[in-house]
């Protein structure tokens, strides 16, 4: 039961590995960005799960209420920052892909690598 109870961590590990595998195995630049994004999204789930406490209330202080267990808001705030970072990384990556398509005429990593080797020789 303990293992099943941690199901969101299993989702985190699964998504992380899916993203990482796509990142490593694919040579198309857009697919690489997709892999990276899934990889980063997995970490969001990790942080969000970290802040949850079973039976906890959202962390809003109500005057007079005693003995309430609150969820930990800090990991959620942290991951908000990381989400912004992830979005900006993706924006820069997509902008680079547009420029690469203009300069090379392709977004297949293997073809670009071949052209690079050709211009080196």
């Amino acid at each position, binding site marked *: 039961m303990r293992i099943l109870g941690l199901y969101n961590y299993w989702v985190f590990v699964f998504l992380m590995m899916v993203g990482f595998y796509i990142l490593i195995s694919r040579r198309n630049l857009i697919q690489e960005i997709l892999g990276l994004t899934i*990889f980063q999204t997995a970490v969001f789930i990790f942080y969000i799960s*970290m802040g949850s406490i079973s039976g906890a209330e959202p962390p809003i202080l109500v005057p007079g209420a005693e003995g309430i267990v609150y969820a930990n808001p800090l990991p959620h705030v942290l991951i908000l*920052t990381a989400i912004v970072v992830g979005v900006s*990384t993706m924006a820069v990556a997509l902008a*680079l892909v547009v420029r*690469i398509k203009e300069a090379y005429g392709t977004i297949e990593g293997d073809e670009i690598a071949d052209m690079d080797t050709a211009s080196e020789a």
Partner: protein
Amino acid sequence: MSEHLPILLVVVPLAAAALAAVIRSGRAAWGLMLLSAWVVLGSSVSLLAQVLREGRIRYVLGGWPPPWGIEYNIDLLSAFVLVLLGGIAAIITPFALRSVEREIHSAQVHFHYSALLLCFAGLLGMTSTGDVFNLFVFLEISSISAYTLIAMGSDRRALHAAFRYLIMGSVGATFIVIGIGMLYMMTGSLNMADLAELIPAERNRTLSVALAFLTVGVGLKLALFPLHLWLPDAYTFAPSAVTAFLASTATKVAVYVLARFLFTVFGVAFTFEVMALDRILIPLCLFGILAGSLRAIHQRNVKRLLAYSSVAQVAYVVLGISLVSVTGLTAGILHLFNHALMKGSLFLAMGCVMYKVGSVRIEAMRGLGRTMPWTMAAFVIGGLSLVGVPLTVGFISKWYLVLGAVEQGRWLVTAVVLLGSLLAVIYIWRVVEVAYFEEASGNGPGGEAPLSLLIPTWALVLANLYFGIDATLTSGIAGGAARLLMGLGGP
């Protein structure tokens, strides 16, 4: 005013970056960069003096006391790295003016300085912060702007190099976030000083995994062999001034971050006694020294040659750190500083060649010893320093490194360090031979680079000689910082 120096150091370039992006004038943006670089240099020197006088400076942001609020923590090591960052930026910015005008499209120049300022601010923030999540944010600020800077290179391969760096750098940064998350799960704290007290010196699975994620993540950022694959292309195709800046600052700050995590956050007892990380790091460094130097020998492009040499030199720095002794750490910290000086001057010399000849391929260097005597003399002195010849900074740090290795009876390490120097002789000699002993190819306008490029280059070359002849200041500070990291006290 002076008590706010730790935060001003970061805020000044950050604000200047925003201004530079909107003013639409390349010259004005350059002026902002120059101003912030010198302001940072001035304040970091004054911070270093204050740390030496009064000990560690703790600055609390917004009046929220740590461990809840973010704290900036300037000790001897961070102050030393801050001075290095300020000094390098203050020297490279004057060089950038003409070099950037030549290499970057005029409509992009102010964006270039904006990105450079952002990168600078990020590196300064990483060095001064005492909060691990804040460190991640600054790491991403500096990394994302570095990807942009590299993509501004004139060759289309710069775009591909920037993309590869972006993918690997983001994986590294995400690994760091995972590591930080695990630290937070176990301790409930993000403050480095607080974490240091909360982490027990015993085996714990979550903390072990956190250490692994952080080491690999930071290892990607500092191009630790075999995680260095992004570095050669990125350094080769970035604009000259950017290569010089990144080569002498970005990897250095990443090494600083590694030392912070291993020694300050996890502590010597956990990292090296419980986890025995040195048994992994030392072999990787030895392979890195050999592989980087051997690859450097075969390069036809001198910037790529120097980039592979950087892989080897960074391995020297990490090797010093992973000896886990005061001498070893002193060597590592000294080489961190000294390598920034030598690679800075070598890449600036290549920037002069690029400006005059338009290529940094080894064929293009023919006869440059006669047509560009000052530039090539700078290259030769920088190269001698890389090899580790006495009277240059390279000798000082390698001396400490060999001392540290011999002290522990590690003869293999000693042998590889010396072998690495011999390999450096070979790859530097290849350039020197072409430049001094072959006839000029006759293409290109010829003549020496303008003074606005030569003076910054020679400023770094002279720093190579000065700190090589009188190393009391640098080795004193590095020794103090080493004792601090080993937990033996000090400021």
